């Protein structure tokens, strides 16, 4: 259900640019926008590979454009907001791909943008290199308390630091410290896997 359906006052506050309303909408749609952009990258880069951070950058650009005053005015409040965001994401992706082609001096070559919309038979693209993700899964499976609980709340359930702290009876500082331990632990696990020659966040854009 759209967040605008859940809270009748949200659309008005959103269109006025109220920061809290924008954040509610951001969090409601960030997964959809991420999926759209990831699929768009896969389909437009073909066999090339790309970094997960590229997707994150494009997601940020999409919301920054959609939440700018002109973007808020461009939303008529009648069409579904997800469709509007998908259009913004498409334009952001096209701009990014064009710039990339200019940077690679491919501007003179013919190019057709492949729509990121899913077609029959499209599988969800992998988030990252399967070998790297296997390491991540192994690392997560071996977590002990309290890392396991914080991981579950923050990285799976998507709770904010404050909500995680409240749910687990911890302070926010403790949650931050455990997050840091989670990152360091994963970095160590990846580092230990020295036989892997692939950069750890490189996603193979297999179709």
């Amino acid at each position, binding site marked *: 259900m759209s967040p*605008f359906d859940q809270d*009748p*006052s*949200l*659309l*008005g*506050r959103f*269109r*006025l*640019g*109220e*920061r809290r309303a924008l*954040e509610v909408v*951001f*969090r409601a749609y*960030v*997964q959809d926008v*991420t999926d759209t952009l990831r699929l768009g990258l896969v389909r437009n880069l073909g066999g090339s590979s790309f*970094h*997960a*951070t590229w997707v*994150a950058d494009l997601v*940020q650009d999409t*919301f*920054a454009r959609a*939440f*700018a*005053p002109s973007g808020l*005015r461009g939303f*008529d*409040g009648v069409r579904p907001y997800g469709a509007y965001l998908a259009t913004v994401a498409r334009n952001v992706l096209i701009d990014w791909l064009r710039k990339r082609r200019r940077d690679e001096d491919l501007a003179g070559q013919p190019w057709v943008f492949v729509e990121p919309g899913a077609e029959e038979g499209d599988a*969800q693209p992998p*988030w*990252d290199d399967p070998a*790297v*993700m296997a390491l*991540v899964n192994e690392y*997560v499976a071996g977590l002990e308390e309290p890392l396991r609980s914080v*991981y579950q709340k*923050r*990285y*799976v*359930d*998507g709770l*904010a*630091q404050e909500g995680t702290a409240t749910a687990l009876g911890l302070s926010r500082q403790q949650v931050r410290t455990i*997050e840091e331990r*989670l*990152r360091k632990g*994963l*970095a160590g696990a*990846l580092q230990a*896997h*020295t036989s*892997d*020659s*692939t*950069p*750890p*966040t490189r996603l193979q854009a297999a179709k």
Partner: protein
Amino acid sequence: MSRSPDDRELDLLLARDKAVGPAVDAMWEKVSATLPAPRRSRSWRLPVMVAAPALAAAAAVLIFVGGPPSGLQPKGPMVAALVDVVCSGGSRGACPSGSTLVFALGGTDRPTYLTAWAQAEGSDERIWYFGGSGEALRLEAREAVTPLSRAIALGPEHHPGTYLVHWTLADASPVSGSQAAPLAQGQVALTIVPR
């Protein structure tokens, strides 16, 4: 491995295929940093002729009460109030029945009382939103334009048609039989369409 991943990459990996966790918090912070700063009262204190075109584009109504119209005396510091009315289900030009009207107010430097009502074109009847037989809505001084916590549901008393939504801001709540001198007042057009 060619290099060590940074914190952001590690957060993305830990979240696997979900857009959750610290990586998304960081995304929001970056998006938030690109948004315009909340509007401050100083920007309202522009001469009306300069500010009006931009404000009109934002579908807002500016009333500058500094050089008051004849008959109104300034009460303390100047007030430059901005009131915006938004139809949450559409636009003010086509607001479907059953939508919610959200009032937003800013640019006031003292507590004020808001009175607001709608009047259908060609009708003398008022549909009260704030004030009327009830109390006007007391609001603390607020520099930035922020939505009011109370919104108006456009119920069956709002037949499709064109309305003028009137509002006044005063130092005191009007009491029966008297009308507090307004600090600011204005009106905006609203067209209600069938759902």
